[in-house]
């Protein structure tokens, strides 16, 4: 996928995440439905980087790439813990379909904890790929076109 496509997906995911991560402002109903949207965007985000993931699994010798992959796997696990626990304490979506989930007092603390952990991991994820984002800044592109190339090389497979 082209760089612009990746950037649009990343920006969309960031905006949707910020909305979903603040139920205090949006309320539960928006929080739940927007979180489902976030799941869909995350799936697309991972699918666009599928080749990079497969390639890193095959070439595990490179430390930076392997560390990035480990971070991404940890983020995926925590994200799914947050999604599953979120569905199990759902006040709107699950009851809307005529279902109710037992185990509220187990799932609720898991959901709160995983949400905090996910926020931390996503910030680290963003920082880990800062070169790619920096390479897309308009003034940096104008200053030094080779920087963009360096950024792309760091994100091998990100722009395929």
């Amino acid at each position, binding site marked *: 996928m082209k760089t612009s496509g990746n950037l649009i997906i990343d920006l969309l995911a960031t905006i949707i995440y910020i909305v979903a*991560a603040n139920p*205090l402002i949006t309320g539960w109903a928006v929080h739940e439905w927007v979180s489902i949207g976030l799941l869909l965007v995350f799936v*697309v985000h991972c699918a666009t980087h599928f080749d990079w993931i497969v390639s890193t699994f095959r070439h595990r010798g490179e430390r930076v790439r392997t560390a990035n992959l480990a971070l991404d796997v940890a983020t995926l696990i925590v994200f799914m813990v947050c999604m599953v626990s979120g569905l199990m304490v759902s006040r709107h979506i699950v*009851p809307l379909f005529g279902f*109710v989930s037992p185990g*509220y007092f187990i799932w609720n603390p898991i959901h709160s904890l995983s949400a905090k952990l996910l926020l931390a991991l996503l910030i680290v994820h963003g920082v880990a790929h800062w070169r790619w984002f920096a390479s897309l800044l308009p003034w940096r592109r104008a200053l030094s076109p080779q920087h963009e190339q360096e950024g792309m090389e760091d994100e091998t497979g990100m722009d395929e």
Partner: protein
Amino acid sequence: MARRLILTVIVFLLVGVVVFAVTRLGGGDVVALPQRIAVDTTCPVAGCMQPDGACHAAGPYPTPDGNFLMNCPRVVGCTDTNCHAWDRIEGMRSKPSEASMNLWILAPVLLVVALVAMVYAMEKRPAKNKRDGE
């Protein structure tokens, strides 16, 4: 792309199933798949039953009237018509808790990122202008 999307969805589903299985392993029988709401379904938070079988998970909530018998979901065998779990339902369950500190973490992070971006831009722009002048 379609093949990648399908594989990604499968991976997400697998991780989700593992998360549920591990939680069930640790939580025991209390952790189960969502169940269809029936007349005898109890509220997962307050343990009360709705006579018409409609779950009030998303409100409106019944108010303690001295007749509505509640079974505590945490303490087995504890039933009362004026259960002290009402505070929990009317507070945490019905509206997000302020303990959800995402706003207070996200806001400073966004502020710092914006400031760093601004400083970065200000540092780079004079260099660009200088180069354009040359």
